[in-house]
């Protein structure tokens, strides 16, 4: 090991602030990126599920309306 004590390691020969700023910023940006990428997976799945729900609802409403229309036409033509 290049450092004899933990304090030496943090101090980085006087450059501690800059070295840890660099490593810290890198870790921060990469963590955000990974979290965003993984969260995206759940978001996409949720959005598709919601869309399917909405489509199913619209289909149901359309079927119901068609039935009502057919009913109304039958009543009028009798």
């Amino acid at each position: 090991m290049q450092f004899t004590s933990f304090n030496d390691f943090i101090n980085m020969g006087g450059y501690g602030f800059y070295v840890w700023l660099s490593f810290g910023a890198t870790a921060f940006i990469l963590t955000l990126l990974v979290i965003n990428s993984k969260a995206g997976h759940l978001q996409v799945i949720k959005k598709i599920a919601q869309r399917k729900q909405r489509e199913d609802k619209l289909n149901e409403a359309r079927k119901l309306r068609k039935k009502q229309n057919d009913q109304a036409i039958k009543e009028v033509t009798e």
Partner: protein
Amino acid sequence: MWKFLHPYANPEVSYHFTNKLLPWLTALTAIFLTVGLLWALLFAPADYQQGDSFRIFYIHVPAASLSMGIYVSMAIAAFSSLVWQLKLADASAAAMAPVGAAFTAIALITGAAWGKPMWGTWWIWDARLTSELILLFLYLGVIALHNAFEDKNLAGKAAGILTLVGVINIPIIKYSVEWWNTLHQGATVSKLGKPSMALDMLWPFIFCFIGFSLLVAVIICLRFRNEILARNSIRPWVRELVKKHDS
């Protein structure tokens, strides 16, 4: 000769292939990054001139190199999309842009943090720094264009054209230190000739470089999966997947 690639133009095939790759890539990334970063922080020697601030090199150079490599990949994807109408290429370009932007930002920030103690300034408008900053703006522009349109085909075309126009920036960044009298130093690690670097610094650098490259691959794979699902949401196989996930 390239017929073996043809099945992968199918989104479903590419989705499952990416899923299969991910565990392996993640494992390799963990190994290479851990070994590389620990080696760089604890075991690599301090530079005789720059002292321990040289450890920033092990992040800064891979990040800068990858920022350019990702942009070139993005440009190839954009080209494929525009010329051969490959929809999957649009998806891959959209997946790569945020990763490239992140690594460009890392390169700029670590560079600034290294420049302050070494050169006495956080920033200078020299050729390499300025062109790398322009690269960041190009990435942000590509991301903005991908998100600006409801119609993903239109978005892909617009972002693709910006990507291809911006590709000229890459040789500018690379050769800036040769063409102009810049503050930023020239190449330390020559890819073709014998490296001018001591071996006990070269090895941790290699591990860090491979580790970050693999990390880029992992993140792009994650985002590529999401893009495929989002762009193929009406397909039955996607609907099946979503149903299985919810149950």
